[in-house]
């Protein structure tokens, strides 16, 4: 499976949880910590992200950047 990962801008996140609903792999969850504005923010809790970008597309605050393994690297690894 192609691997991906997300970088979350925790200061912009408002903890609306729309990305958690949108994630097909259930890799995201709300953190126990709060950010400067007082919101619990989202974090990557499992290492099974595929980089499908669903979470970033529905994120209202554009807080998620998605990275995905390129196809060449994927072939090398296999």
């Amino acid at each position, binding site marked *: 499976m192609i*691997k*991906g*990962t997300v*970088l979350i801008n925790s200061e*912009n996140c*408002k*903890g*609306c*949880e*729309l990305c958690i*609903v*949108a994630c097909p792999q259930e890799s995201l969850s709300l953190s126990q910590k709060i950010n400067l504005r007082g*919101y619990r923010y989202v974090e990557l809790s499992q290492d099974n992200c595929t*980089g499908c*970008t*669903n979470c*970033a*597309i*529905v*994120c*209202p*605050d*554009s807080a*998620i*950047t*998605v*990275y*995905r*393994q*390129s196809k060449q*690297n994927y072939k090398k690894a296999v």
Partner: protein
Amino acid sequence: MSQEILLEDMQCVYQKPATLTDDYMHYCPGCGHAVAHKILMEVVQEMGIQEDIVGVAPVGCSVFAYNYMNIDMQEAAHGRASAAATGIKRVLPEKYVFAYQGDGDLAAIGTAETIHTINRGENILIVFINNGIYGMTGGQMAPTSLLGQKTSTSPYGRDVEHNGYPLKITDLIAHLPGAYYVTRQAVHTPNTVRKFKKAIKNAFEFQKLKKGTCFIEVVSNCPSGWKMTPKETLAYIEEKMLPEYPLGDLKVPTQNNN
């Protein structure tokens, strides 16, 4: 494995569009306005028209749209965004012009301006965010509020006898000959957001043809006004909003033989 090592053999596939400013958005958590802003600006970036586009911001929650969209913007009086956009388009016919309006702005106070703009067939794009409530002023009933919907001015639910039926303004204007492309989209799931992006792209392409007004309604949510969590609004949209406002194209150019 630390994230830096992991990122080395990976490529960025999605990031915040450069056409959005770095300002922190004032919208409530989970608001559909912010998604709509982001997708609009993504299309502007992909088409490379950042310097050739003028937007008109409305009055409502999205009144500060000009703080977030890094393009030329103009603020209009309440409900008159489409009228202001008309003027801009007539003076600068080669620019892409869009009016971004909410339901209190477009369907209540600006009904006359909207209908006449489309009846004249002005070559602009109108983006209409429909969340069925006046979000900015404290959750009052809007013309698009659903029957039975509890708002601060209809605490026992909207009833037909006192308040009439929800105004389906998109269906109304689809009949006008000046409308070229009329569609209804949503922004609550990844798939609907992708379709919305496609619709905006189509609308900007059609604007080049100068054949008439493009109109995109976006069924959106209002977690604060509906008194729900953002998660609950997704179910509310699916169960209540979409049966009343079904998604899809209401008028596409091939059908009206323009």
